[in-house]
């Protein structure tokens, strides 16, 4: 795993190009500490930082074919490279290395842009076709690996992380206020938008092509759910469960391929327990597992972790993550997320990858993706109950289901049906709205916008982030089952834009650790999309078919465990122990006034409320959102007041290169 960097456009003198590429590459050194390489051609340049995992000795990049007509620079893994190589050799291709990188070169030579359809992996690659003077950049289907780009005059620059692009002279780090509104609605900007006004993100499952005539971005894959009216094929559940298990086993097996040992994260929940159980037989020298433990009972899952370790016999180690650890890590976390966040949940994962690196491991499997693919999140159940209630608005009994929905929220258990109806039914959402399932989350997150400054509100006047999401919904969405609609929103947006980036790639790669996700194998995603909704969310049992498929694999207590959302202590992290200096420094009235994004007086009141007491969802969201935005601003823009419609002369940001 690695960092890819490059440009295409105006000719640059070699010395200057080398200097620029070097500077950009240094800023993503954490992604690939093992090796560096450069390619400079006519109006084209690639730089690569390598974390050596497959083909360690002969996988140096950028890599060219024998003729030198194709050059590739690649971040990630092609898990089916062994099969692809056999297929290509049978078609007459001769390989010089054992790496998966070379497979991309031959596959492109064989199939052109359609090569991506054959790849099973988590990848971003940039491929230069010198004879056509054409650049192809591809990003994996689910959005595991990142790719950002920016255009400056006649040149396209691209990189695995934004910080490399900020090394391009003249590229500004100005904030896009609409992206900030999206963070405070969806938890992350929706690509191609990023929090940086002049920088775009290549969306998951997309190709970017550029030649001397210009640039195009187009999708090559999307999740296809069947029409709700389509007759189900009537397959028995046991039959479907067998197919799920077989495919999941293969998805895990090919993700254990590496020339270095592969470990696994083990949270103690259903999903990571499954990946660990499936991975164990493929770990030739035993499986190493890693976890986070928390001090508060509300967040800690260590008893389940111990149970799984006993059951599987893995070599386990964990790190304790308390308030102090989160508070201390948080500024570094924001340097790596490169965007504001409304949760502290990335911080424990940042600390966990550091631990994995310290244990001299580079690759871990995780259970991420199962909740999207097999419908595990509460939001799916909640949407179902809300739909059920909306059919009989006068009913008092129906609202009582919300108590069963959130057994882990003690406050809710005491509420009367009347109160539940008031909270969950207050907004009278239209069940025909494509965003029906997600409206409550958008609203409860969006409540934190009361802290936006008057100037920011003025700039955002008339803007509704949800409209931008609505515009991205496929034409046949309206014909899908409501559960599938909700799964699509979760899988296409929150998953790549927040989970896989701010909690995934960016936290793991901060310490040169590669995460691999068996549940996000596209064959499994495609299979799960065709499984009837009632087999996924069966009554109130989430991921029902997955539980059935893995019954024999796990201890019953784990197999039947109700999902506990992964959460970390939020605003309390900053005030339980000694309050870190940066909190007061960034949230005092003068500092907030200076950045211009939030209301200084309201922020001051929020800060004193958080110092005083533990808070609910809204205040936590607001506090973490405001604090991370202030941290982001300080780290990346180093500018004075943000003003609506105000464009400063562009400037270069030096990052981590001082």
């Amino acid at each position, binding site marked *: 795993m690695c960092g890819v960097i490059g440009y295409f456009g105006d000719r640059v003198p070699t010395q200057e190009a080398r200097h620029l590429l070097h500077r950009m590459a240094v800023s993503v050194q954490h992604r690939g500490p093992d090796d560096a390489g450069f390619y400079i051609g006519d109006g084209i340049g690639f730089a690569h930082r390598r974390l050596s995992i497959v083909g360690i000795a002969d996988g140096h990049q950028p890599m060219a074919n024998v003729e030198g007509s194709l050059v590739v620079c690649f971040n990630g893994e092609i898990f089916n490279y062994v099969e692809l190589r056999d297929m290509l050799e049978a078609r007459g291709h001769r390989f010089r290395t054992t790496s998966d990188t070379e497979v991309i070169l031959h596959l492109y030579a064989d199939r052109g842009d359609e090569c991506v359809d054959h790849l099973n992996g988590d990848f971003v690659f940039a491929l230069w076709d010198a004879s056509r003077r054409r650049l192809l950049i591809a990003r994996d289907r689910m959005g595991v690996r990142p790719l950002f780009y920016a255009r400056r005059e006649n040149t396209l620059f691209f990189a695995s992380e934004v910080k490399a692009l900020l090394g391009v002279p003249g590229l500004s780090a100005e904030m896009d206020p609409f992206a900030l509104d999206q963070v405070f609605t969806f938890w992350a900007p929706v690509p191609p938008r990023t929090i940086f006004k002049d920088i775009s993100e290549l969306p998951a499952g997309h190709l970017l092509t550029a030649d001397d005539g210009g640039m195009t971005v187009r999708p090559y894959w999307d999740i296809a759910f069947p029409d709700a009216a389509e007759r189900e094929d009537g397959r028995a559940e046991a039959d479907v469960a067998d197919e799920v298990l077989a495919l999941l086993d293969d998805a895990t097996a090919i993700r254990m391929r590496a020339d270095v040992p592969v470990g696994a994260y083990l949270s103690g929940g259903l999903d990571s327990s499954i990946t660990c159980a499936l991975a164990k037989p493929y770990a030739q020298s035993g499986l190493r597992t890693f976890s986070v433990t928390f001090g508060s009972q509300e967040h800690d899952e260590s008893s389940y972790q111990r149970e799984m370790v006993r059951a599987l016999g893995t070599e386990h180690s964990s790190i304790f993550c308390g308030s102090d650890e989160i508070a201390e890590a948080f500024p570094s976390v924001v340097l790596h997320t490169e965007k504001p966040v409304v949760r502290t949940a990335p911080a424990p994962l940042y600390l966990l990858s550091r631990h994995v690196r310290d244990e001299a491991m580079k690759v871990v499997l995780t259970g991420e993706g199962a909740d999207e693919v097999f419908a595990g999140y509460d939001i799916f159940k909640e949407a179902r109950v809300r739909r059920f209630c909306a059919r009989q608005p006068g009913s008092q009994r129906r609202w009582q289901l919300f108590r069963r929905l959130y057994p882990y929220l003690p*406050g809710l258990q005491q509420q009367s049906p009347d109160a539940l109806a008031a*909270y969950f039914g207050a907004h009278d959402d239209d069940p025909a709205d494509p965003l029906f399932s997600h409206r409550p989350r958008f609203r409860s997150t969006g409540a934190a916008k*009361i802290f936006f400054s008057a100037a920011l509100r003025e700039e955002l006047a008339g803007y509704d982030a949800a409209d931008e999401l609505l515009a991205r919904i496929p034409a046949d969405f309206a014909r899908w089952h409501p559960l599938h609609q909700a799964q699509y929103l979760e899988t296409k947006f929150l998953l790549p834009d927040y989970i896989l980036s701010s909690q995934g790639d960016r936290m793991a790669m901060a310490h040169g650790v590669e995460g691999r996700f068996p549940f996000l194998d596209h064959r499994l995603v495609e299979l799960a999309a065709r499984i009837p909704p009632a087999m996924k969310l069966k009554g109130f049992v989430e991921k029902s078919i997955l539980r059935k498929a893995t019954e024999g694999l796990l201890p019953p207590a784990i197999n039947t465990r109700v999902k506990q959302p992964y959460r970390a202590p939020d605003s309390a992290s900053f005030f339980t122990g000694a309050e870190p200096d940066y909190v007061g420094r960034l949230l005092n009235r003068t500092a907030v006034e200076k950045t211009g994004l939030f209301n200084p007086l*309201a922020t001051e009141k929020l800060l004193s409320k958080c110092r005083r007491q533990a808070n*609910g969802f*809204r205040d936590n969201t607001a506090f973490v959102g405001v604090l991370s935005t202030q941290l982001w601003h300080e780290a990346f823009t180093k500018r004075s007041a943000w003003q609506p419609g105000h464009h400063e002369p562009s400037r270069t940001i030096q990052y981590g290169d001082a």
Partner: protein
Amino acid sequence: MATLNEEIRAFIVESFLFGDTSRTPGDDDSLIENDVVDSTGILELVAFVEDNLGIPVADAEILPANFDSIAKLAAFVTSKRGGLQQDDAA
């Protein structure tokens, strides 16, 4: 002395609106429907009634009928105060 309604309103503006007086609710505005309080917010209101107004609140009384607007809360507090005084007299 501030009226009970004003006292409640001041607490709401301070604790839930963080001083944003442009969104100050009227006596009969629903606090829930206008996103002024969420389910945690209701519990903060309960704590306010207990700590600042000295009125104990039973679980069964945590209802929108008692807490969803300034007027409803004021009426609830007033009736509880009446009840307490009667208890004292008894």
